């Protein structure tokens, strides 16, 4: 059969990998794909929290590789979607508890039952990164429009390029603030792409709704009034190969009100 194995990675921490993974997984499942999420952030697990599945964890990926349980026992079904599952990480232990070879074995076993395996990569470029990327054939590189995040993403792309196996790489620019880009206070998507030079698959605006929904245990893609949720849904569709046009980041200002605003805000 063979499932698509996609890793969500960034290099830098705190750019929104886990939120992206959770939302894309849910969106893809909503679109009918059989999806399994793997939390590769051993020792610092978060994905279960964002998915609202923390209380259901009995076994985790380390239990699986150390053969204390069957892989199927460790998988947790989503609350709503039957075709979405999570393979959690332990909160104890550290990254060395799993080897890249074991990760490949786990993915091979999951390939029979799922269409898409989505791996949440930990920050950094050490063992955890090696584990998370070992089995992947595609990578979603998440970056924020700021220099340190781009620098780290560039390092990640370099490391992925130096791997022996061919890997497709896609860029997600996360937490962009259109009003700041408009005022030239934030790097725009072109600036980011100029450096990284990989195919853009989505631009996610900064959205307070993400924080609100996350704290309620709801995902942005399931929330009607989240602009970030809509952008993430578009990414999920593009991952499936649909041609979804990129909406403009902000409306061109030619309205009368905009002109007035501009007149007042000029220096």
């Amino acid at each position, binding site marked *: 059969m063979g499932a698509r194995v996609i890793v969500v990675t960034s290099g830098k921490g705190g750019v929104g990998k886990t939120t992206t993974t959770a939302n894309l997984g849910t969106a893809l499942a909503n679109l009918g794909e059989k999806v399994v999420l793997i939390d590769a952030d051993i020792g610092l697990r978060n994905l279960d929290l964002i998915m609202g599945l923390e209380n259901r964890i009995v076994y985790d990926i380390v239990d699986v590789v150390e053969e204390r349980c069957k892989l199927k026992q460790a998988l947790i079904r989503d609350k709503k979607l039957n075709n979405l599952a999570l393979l959690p990480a332990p909160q104890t232990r550290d990254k060395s508890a799993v080897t890249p070879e074991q990760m490949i074995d786990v993915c091979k076993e999951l390939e029979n039952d799922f269409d898409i395996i989505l791996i949440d990569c930990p920050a950094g470029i050490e063992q955890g990164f090696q584990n998370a990327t070992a089995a992947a054939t595609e990578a979603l590189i998440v970056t924020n429009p700021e220099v340190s995040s781009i*620098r*780290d993403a*560039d*390092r990640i*792309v*370099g*490391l992925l*390029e*130096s791997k022996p196996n061919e890997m497709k790489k896609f860029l997600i620019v996360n937490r962009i603030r259109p009003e700041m880009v408009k005022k030239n206070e934030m790097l725009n998507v072109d600036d980011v792409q100029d*450096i990284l*030079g990989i195919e853009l698959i989505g631009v996610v605006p900064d959205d307070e709704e993400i924080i609100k929904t996350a704290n309620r245990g709801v995902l942005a893609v399931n929330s009607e009034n989240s602009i970030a949720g809509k952008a993430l849904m578009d990414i999920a569709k593009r991952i499936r190969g649909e041609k979804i046009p990129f909406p403009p980041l902000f409306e061109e200002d030619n309205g009368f009100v905009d002109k007035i605003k501009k007149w007042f805000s000029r220096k």
Partner: protein
Amino acid sequence: MSNSVSEEETETLNKIIIKGGKDGLLISIPDGNWVELLQQLSEILEKDKNFWIGASASVDLGNHSLDEIQLNRFYEMLIKRHHLIISAIYSKDEATRSFAEKLKLKVGKVHPLMQTQAPNIIQDAPIVSGVSNSSSNTSNATYIKQTLRSGQTVRFDGNVIVYGDTNPGSEIIASGDIIVIGTLRGIAHAGAKGNENCQVVATNLKATQIRIGSVIGMSSDEKNQSLPVPEVASVVDGKIYISPLKVKRTG
């Protein structure tokens, strides 16, 4: 020992070969007296310290079989005294390989470069004749057709040509000139063995730092040049100057 002097003499004529490329250096040790070869290697590395420091290298020990103590000492010498980062050890001797494995190094029988190429004939012989080379004394060059990303380093004993961008956080260290056909945003160190006649040329020069020989130039903080023009950085009166590229045609 005394009865095999003539044999030993011819063998020590074999030189240690150090090659550079984008995957790091290869140090190839020929057959011969181990202690003398160690001495020879140490001298080479000591002579151009600045060029070698921090370089990642693999070592091809060829036919040498070392015991564990010899190998550990050799390894210590390379990393502690010469500050190299050793990534792999190649040896035809199985025991030597097993000791290297204990040091958590990658091991193999023969380095891929040594398998395919006849020892260094092409690299050392200048192909162009009748051309005087003004800046660098070598006509070696390596050609890299890719984007150099953050964390990637090219270290080469000769000139380096990159057809692609070099991103911030990347590094090119060359004993000769550096030419970037693309945007140079990373660090470029030309003439790394002390030759201040070397130059750095880029079609879009936005380097964070340029070094030529032992001179260091930082990028000016002002941005926003309108259209990128090819520029060249060179040393004038002990400082790095950047000027538009003009190719002089003499004769």
